């Protein structure tokens, strides 16, 4: 949206005066049409801003409750000092985006990080799970072969734990045996800022090879297995919430900027419009007067 508005502005600035000189009447109409369309765009961006502001406040409230879930799951890996196994290099990257655009660079940032890694060495051992249509659209052309699963219909409603657990189940059932992985998401910091970060996930074998696993008491394979499955769902839930919140806040900022830009354009166009109208009137007057004096 921003880009489109920007282009339009450029177009008007470049062609405005030139056209005006060529044919005053036509431009008057052209300007008024353009003015109207920019006004409509502003209305749309303003209402989108309002909508995302409402969604944002809810997402932030939800996020506060979801944070402990993610922190807990993350701490387990940190305490046990789990490291990716060298002999099993299969990796799984999960890109958390959504279906909706018009929200600044949240989705692009995620995909850029993944792209940088895939362009590096060892790329053939990496598979991607695309959550949200945006990451799929960005990654499918260049890295289509790496994608094993794509998920859509996300971003319309706030993510639920049911979403996360179905996603986790789908990843586990996909048949891809990864030893370690990363979830790429946008960590929400404040209304105006987020950071694109990643969280590690590991498989059973990798956890068992962890050096400090013994700090946890009475663990057998089945407990770890169950916990891993749950923690994948918990981590996904947490990252979905973080991403949703960052997305809404980013959309709010983007739409605010778009409305502001549209407002500036409206001011400029109104000025040009009035000036052109004045010029047309003056010219008509001159024509009439000179016609009358010629009689």
């Amino acid at each position, binding site marked *: 949206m921003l880009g489109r508005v920007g282009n339009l502005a450029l177009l008007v600035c470049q062609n405005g005066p030139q056209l005006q000189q060529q044919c005053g009447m036509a431009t008057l109409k052209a300007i008024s049409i353009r003015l109207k369309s920019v006004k409509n765009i502003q209305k749309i961006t303003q209402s989108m801003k309002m909508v995302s502001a409402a969604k944002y406040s809810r997402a932030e409230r939800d996020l506060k409750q979801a944070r402990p879930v993610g922190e807990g799951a993350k701490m387990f890996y940190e305490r046990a000092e789990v490291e990716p196994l060298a002999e099993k290099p299969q990796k799984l990257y999960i890109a958390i985006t959504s279906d909706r655009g018009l929200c600044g660079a949240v989705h692009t940032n995620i995909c850029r990080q993944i792209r940088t890694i895939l362009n590096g060495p060892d790329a053939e051992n990496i598979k991607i799970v695309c959550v949200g249509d945006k990451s799929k659209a960005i990654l499918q052309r260049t890295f*289509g072969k790496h*994608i094993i*699963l794509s998920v859509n*219909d*996300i971003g319309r409603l706030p993510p639920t734990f049911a*979403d996360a*657990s*179905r996603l986790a*189940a789908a990843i586990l059932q996909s048949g891809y045996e990864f030893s370690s992985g990363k979830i790429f998401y946008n960590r929400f910091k404040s209304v105006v800022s987020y950071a694109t970060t990643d969280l590690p996930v590991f498989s059973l074998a990798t956890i068992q090879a962890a050096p400090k696993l013994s700090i946890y008491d009475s663990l057998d394979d089945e407990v770890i297995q169950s*916990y891993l499955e749950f923690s994948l769902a918990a981590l996904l839930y947490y990252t979905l919430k973080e991403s949703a919140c960052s997305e809404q806040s980013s959309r709010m900022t983007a739409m605010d900027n778009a409305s502001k830009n549209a407002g500036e354009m409206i001011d400029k166009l109104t000025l040009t419009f009035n000036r052109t109208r004045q010029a047309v009137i003056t010219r008509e007057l001159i024509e009439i007067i000179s016609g009358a004096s010629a009689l």
Partner: protein
Amino acid sequence: MSAWRAAGLNYINYSSIAARILRRALKADVKAEAGKRDVSNLKFTPWIDGKAQKTPVAPSSG
């Protein structure tokens, strides 16, 4: 091995079934609110060799 794992479920399936049963047992005034947390509309599409497979599958959580 626990019975649910022997039946081919993993912990995610198991816990989501448990959660659903618990939600059903709630009192009426909080049941509606809790019911909203039980919905999931995600659609899954498996990819093979850079091509999306046609039928979106929806693996059940329970």
